[in-house]
């Protein structure tokens, strides 16, 4: 930690402080230094640039750039800031993509959303947004959404024209035996994403993912809600694991409001979060086998998942979008008999586990098909800033629950789970092992809650939340959670006496993982697309936000 501070102090810095136990926050005086500082950090182990988050300060006429660097090995992280001018022509900064491969799409996103131009970026095209948003920077504070919506027909025409134009261009550019395959968005296995697969017969030459089909501008939508209402926006990050998504946001809001939640709420967050992770991983395992035409596993897993959703229903009234967590604790108290519903789900899982493992997880044909496909090395994990299941399958020991324990994870007995080779099958095994780990954590948390209630330590109907203020002071916080797909980083900014968030940046894991597709699939055959795509455990919800 001290070493990073020493390195940073050699440069021209406006402020530096320790933030939380694992972060150093530093503000640079000049954006010109950025590349030098980043290089210095990189040589000292902070190899992963997680995300780039511009914040638009309309009153100060500046855009503040936030860079989040992480070191996956020693868990030292650095949060770098610098200001750049706000005028469209002068809004420029040096690109870090030549040094940090993972910055590629993050910078493209900042370019499309805030109009920040990155000097020296190899491929600075807009991403996520459609043609009608090009060069308009929709996330800037002065962007007029109503005016934009008024031109609906014109906007659609722009998109259609561009599509036709692209078709004509493809016909001209492609060689005789090459073809451009549109893999999605209406493909049985693609989900709402379009992969432009340039292929020669069955061989892939390159893949260009075209994302943004489910772009709901969540990060903008949050700013229209107050701090409590925002949870329904944040949980739409992905329907499969919504609890952990809200936990992350709630922690950031609590940090700015300086609210400490109760011990009971912490334990219940762990419990709900892990159940949410289980429901998501069950779908992930099913989806993995679906990509190879085997639907049985998905059916079995969905069958198990229903029991866990039953618990959600009894607790929150909703099965999928639960909105159960809010800043200040949890939305509802707990009746102890609700946990009986959970016990049924755990029993169901224990019953099915052995046959699922024997028939499918250790299936020889499946190994034959998947053990040499889509391999990611540990170095690539660092460079592309991958996280979660994908990173751990390559043997990288990262897990926010252990690196930077939140809620009651510091009192849970758990350890890093990793696999060795980082191929498709390792990611499946990873999912399955994590599923078992989550079940174990659920059991621990459930036991602790039962004991706490019995000893009178917890009052389950009153303790679940503390009062959360309507207005928050000026502040800025980041919060990380281990989401089912990996680390989600929330960067929340508030203004003085704010009733709603000023800016919320959500760093979602699928964004970086999708960036890998071209790297993993170029040179393979089109049979491998669904498998690699499915094994990366991508959710289009958090890909586009």
């Amino acid at each position, binding site marked *: 930690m001290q070493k990073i501070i020493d390195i940073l102090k050699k440069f021209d810095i406006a402020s530096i402080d320790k933030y939380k136990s694992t972060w150093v926050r530093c503000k640079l005086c000049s954006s010109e230094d950025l590349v030098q500082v980043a290089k210095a950090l990189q040589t000292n182990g902070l190899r992963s640039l997680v995300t780039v988050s511009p914040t638009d300060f309309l009153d100060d006429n500046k855009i503040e750039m936030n860079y989040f660097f992480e070191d996956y090995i020693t868990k030292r992280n650095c949060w770098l800031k610098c200001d750049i001018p706000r005028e469209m022509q002068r809004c420029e900064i040096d690109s870090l993509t030549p040094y940090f491969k993972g910055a590629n799409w993050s910078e493209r996103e900042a370019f499309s959303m805030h109009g920040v131009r990155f000097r020296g970026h190899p491929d600075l095209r807009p991403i996520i947004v459609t043609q009608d948003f090009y060069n308009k920077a929709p996330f800037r504070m002065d962007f007029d959404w109503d005016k934009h919506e008024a031109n609906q027909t014109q906007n659609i025409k722009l998109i259609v024209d561009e599509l036709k134009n692209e078709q004509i261009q493809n016909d001209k550019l492609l060689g005789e035996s090459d073809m451009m395959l549109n893999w999605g968005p209406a493909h049985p296995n693609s989900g709402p994403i379009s992969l432009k697969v340039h292929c020669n*017969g069955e061989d892939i030459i390159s893949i260009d993912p075209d994302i943004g089909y489910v772009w709901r501008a969540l990060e903008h939508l949050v700013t229209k809600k107050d701090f409590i209402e925002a949870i329904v926006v944040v949980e739409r990050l992905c329907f499969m694991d919504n609890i952990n998504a809200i936990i992350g946001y709630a922690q950031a809001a609590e940090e700015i409001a300086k609210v400490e939640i109760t011990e009971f709420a912490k334990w219940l967050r762990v419990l709900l979060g892990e159940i949410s992770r289980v429901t998501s991983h069950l779908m992930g395992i099913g989806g993995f086998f679906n990509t190879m035409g085997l639907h049985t596993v998905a059916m079995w897993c969905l069958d198990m998942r229903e029991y866990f959703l039953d618990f959600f229903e009894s607790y929150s009234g909703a099965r999928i979008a639960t909105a159960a967590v809010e800043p200040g604790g949890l939305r509802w108290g707990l009746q102890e008999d609700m946990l009986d519903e959970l016990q049924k789900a755990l029993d169901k899982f224990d019953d099915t586990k052995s046959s699922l493992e024997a028939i499918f997880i250790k299936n020889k044909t499946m190994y034959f098909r998947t053990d040499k496909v889509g391999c990611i090395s540990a170095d690539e994990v660092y460079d592309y800033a991958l996280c979660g299941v994908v990173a751990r399958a390559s043997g990288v020991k990262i897990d926010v629950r252990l690196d930077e324990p939140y809620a009651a994870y510091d009192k849970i007995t758990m350890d890093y789970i990793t696999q060795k080779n980082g191929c498709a099958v390792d990611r499946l095994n990873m999912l399955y092992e994590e599923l078992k780990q989550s079940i174990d954590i659920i059991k621990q948390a459930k036991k602790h809650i039962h004991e706490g209630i019995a000893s009178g330590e917890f009052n389950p109907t009153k303790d679940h939340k503390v009062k959360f203020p309507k207005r928050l002071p000026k502040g800025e916080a980041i919060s990380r959670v281990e989401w089912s797909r990996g680390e989600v980083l929330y960067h929340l900014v508030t203004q003085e006496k704010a009733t709603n968030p000023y800016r919320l940046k959500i760093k979602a894991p699928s964004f970086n993982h999708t960036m890998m597709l071209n790297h993993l699939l170029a040179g393979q055959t089109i049979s491998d697309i669904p498998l690699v795509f499915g094994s990366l455990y991508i959710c289009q919800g958090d890909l586009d936000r």
Partner: protein
Amino acid sequence: MSHLFYEILLFPGIGYLLLVSVGLYWVFRKILAPMHKRVGPHFNGPAGSFQTIFDLSKLWTKESITPKGANVYLFSLMPLITLIIALLPTAVIPWTPTEIVVRSSYGVIIFVILIGLEPILLFLTAFSSSNKYALFGGVRVLVQMISMETAFFLACLSPAILFGTMNLHIIVQDSSWLSFAILFPGFIIFLIAFLGLLEQPPFDIPEAEQEIVYGVYTEYSGTNYFLLQLTKFAEFSILFAGGATLFMGGYKGIFFNGYLFLFLKMVFILFFMIVLRAGIVRITMQQMLAFCWRYLIVFSLLNLAWIFIAKALFMGSGI
């Protein structure tokens, strides 16, 4: 003459084959559903058994769309032609001890060739759709045909060599427990190769929906798609019956001979197919090719050698 019409229209012709295809489709669903832990609708007919007919009639009455740029005549004609070709082999199969339409002494050859024609027709179907995914499907169908049919032909040849005839009727009559045992390796090869021909897991490569969106069927909808699906299930029935006839003694039963036993044997092969479908993943084109040419064809050649030896040893006659 009227008997011939009866044979063409009812048994074992169109009417019977449609019925048995739909019936097998129903059995197919009924066996697969519990393996998937799926619960279907209970309310359509007794135990929901009309659901299959409802599904088919829905498909059949839907609008059939011909895409712009497709070869219209070929596109609309091919489903019908494939269906007719798929129904034809029924003529040479001895369904009951008395019912066999064409008593040809080249039954095996007719059967094998008509089955082998189907992939080429499917390729033409793909070709007429002028769709990239359909084209991928068509090419994959051809590649799979070349590799799988070699093994399939060699497997079908083994009963013909053992019994010294290509007449399916005589093959059934001469079959016994001993011949079943001798033909067992050939039967296994037949089962594997026919999975490839019918595009069933793990060889459902030509219609891999997650990869190439059902391949040749991509552009088809409504009636045309219904015809193609029916072709597939007619082909199922024919191949099950063919396998039962060639290797398992056809209509021969334990206490009496009759159609019932042939049907049970067909359901047995269907069951084998469904268990694989419920428990195995699709392999890639390259893996299929490697498997076929490195193992399957080698073993089918060895199997032929075994048949020659066994014939000399057990059947008491020279070659």
